[in-house]
């Protein structure tokens, strides 16, 4: 246990997922405002209560500065840490640290984007084209699916993982998504249907991939004093870990992610183990992303992920590790090509007992949310948070 900890010092008081998956002509700042208002209303707070603002690379213009003006925020704390889709889990950790240090009381975190309506492809914005590594990666026709396929292929080679095992992950997500009226894909799929869907980048099929959606989400993280003053129960932040894994001077290893470091840090801070987790939201840009993170987070040994996910282990409410009960990025929502925010939102629903009754984990007391930003084949920013059941 670290001598100084965020454990129990901060609370998620508000969480809001934009209901739309196609936002049409709404601008990205408008969507940020939609979700900010939604999460603050969920908490019983207003824009005027916010004293800290967190956003990532999806925030337009000058990031936090532009959005603070658009939203009319008066903040004394700002953080625009950018690690792709995992950014928002890192923001929770940083917000909790700022709250634990007594600097702020009400932190707002927002995500918004419109890749579906805006015509952007999957993956990032291309803003990293001037990166020092870019000319050694951008000449080969690589794409986002291909990068994850490289990791899947190596995992199969080293551990005997199969496409049918990866398909089990999509099947579980689809079983959950059928209960979510807002999910982009609500149809239940079978292992065979995943395997019969077209190969996009071997060995990944079309149905191994997440959806492309517009929308966004927001969270409100508050101090204990604020949490006590609010009308409804908040979710307790128990632990957080973040880490970056990269090419390490030509030693790229495709078999694990930075979850191998962010996970243990989060568990240590929370004082719990993987066996204690009742529900897990695990970023699912692709099926292989889930499989590797399940191993890296310690839910099974490295290489055993394929066997672990087989036989309904991920299916709520009674599987061994109920996961992504909103349907996840694989079926429900992957707003702005960034799936970390919605991972936290569904974990909050589970801990509040507000998930769909068909997938609500009975007496869900301890949840994990995990994000993977960047790309498994090159460099990733991973973040893990462990959250505890709402208390009054």
């Amino acid at each position: 246990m670290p001598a100084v900890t965020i454990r129990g010092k901060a609370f998620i008081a508000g969480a809001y997922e934009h209901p739309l998956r196609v936002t049409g002509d709404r601008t990205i700042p408008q969507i940020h405002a939609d979700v900010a208002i939604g999460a603050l209303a969920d908490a019983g707070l207003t824009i005027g209560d916010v004293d800290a603002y967190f956003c990532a690379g999806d925030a337009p213009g000058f990031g936090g500065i532009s959005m603070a003006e658009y939203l009319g925020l008066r903040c004394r704390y700002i953080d625009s840490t950018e690690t792709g889709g995992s950014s928002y889990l890192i923001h929770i950790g940083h917000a909790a640290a700022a709250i634990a240090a007594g600097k702020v009381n009400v932190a707002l975190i927002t995500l918004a984007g419109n890749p579906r309506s805006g015509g952007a492809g999957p993956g990032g914005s291309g803003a990293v084209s001037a990166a020092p590594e870019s000319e050694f990666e951008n000449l080969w026709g690589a794409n986002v699916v291909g990068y994850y396929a490289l990791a899947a292929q190596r995992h199969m080679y080293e551990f005997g993982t199969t496409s049918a095992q990866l398909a089990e992950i999509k099947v579980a997500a689809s079983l959950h998504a059928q209960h979510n009226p807002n999910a982009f894909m609500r149809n239940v799929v079978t292992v065979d249907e995943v395997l019969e869907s077209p190969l996009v980048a071997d060995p990944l099929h079309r149905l191994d991939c997440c959806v492309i959606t517009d929308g966004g989400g927001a969270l409100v993280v508050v101090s204990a004093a604020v949490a006590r003053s609010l009308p409804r129960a908040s979710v307790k932040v128990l632990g957080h870990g973040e880490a970056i894994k990269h090419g390490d001077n030509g030693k790229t290893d495709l078999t694990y992610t930075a979850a191998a470091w962010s996970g243990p840090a989060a568990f240590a801070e929370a004082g719990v183990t993987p066996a204690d987790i009742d529900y897990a939201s695990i970023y699912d840009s692709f099926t292989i992303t889930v499989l590797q993170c399940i191993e890296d987070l310690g839910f099974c040994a490295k290489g055993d992920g394929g066997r672990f996910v087989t036989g309904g282990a991920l299916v709520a409410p009674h599987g061994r590790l109920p996961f992504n009960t909103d349907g996840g990025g694989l079926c429900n929502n992957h707003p702005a090509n960034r799936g970390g925010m919605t991972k936290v939102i569904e974990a909050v629903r589970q801990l509040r007992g507000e998930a769909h009754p068909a997938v609500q984990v009975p007496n869900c007391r301890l949840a994990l949310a995990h994000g993977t930003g960047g790309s498994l084949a090159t460099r990733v920013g991973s973040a893990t948070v462990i959250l505890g059941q709402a208390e009054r």
Partner: protein
Amino acid sequence: MSALPVRAPHRTTETEPFWAACAEGRLVLPRCDRCANYIWYPRLYCPSCAATDVSWHEVSGEGTIYSFTVIRKGAGPFAPVGPYVLAYVELAEGPRLLTNIVDCEVDAVTVAMAVRVVFDPAGDSDALFRFAPA
């Protein structure tokens, strides 16, 4: 020359010797003068020991496929070429490089396959490094 698209790489003061060598049909990597590690991707800084003195050394061009994927439909310049192979090749000297596997059927590629560097001309004064079955 393979059938895959080429464009001239953007050279910087840090990567000029690398691309100049490619244009001459040689694969050269920076190596740290202090810890003797090869450096990948090329830069004038050693991420293994934080040294800034590096020298350029020609490597064998031989390696094995660490992982690969067949991208079924590319985008941009790769859109018209049909399925192609994106791969990590592990050089005999150690570093793992992202590249294409060329000069063979996409379905014939396997992990651990032995490969050797080939150079695709990109205009009059540049070339890209790709790999073909050894």
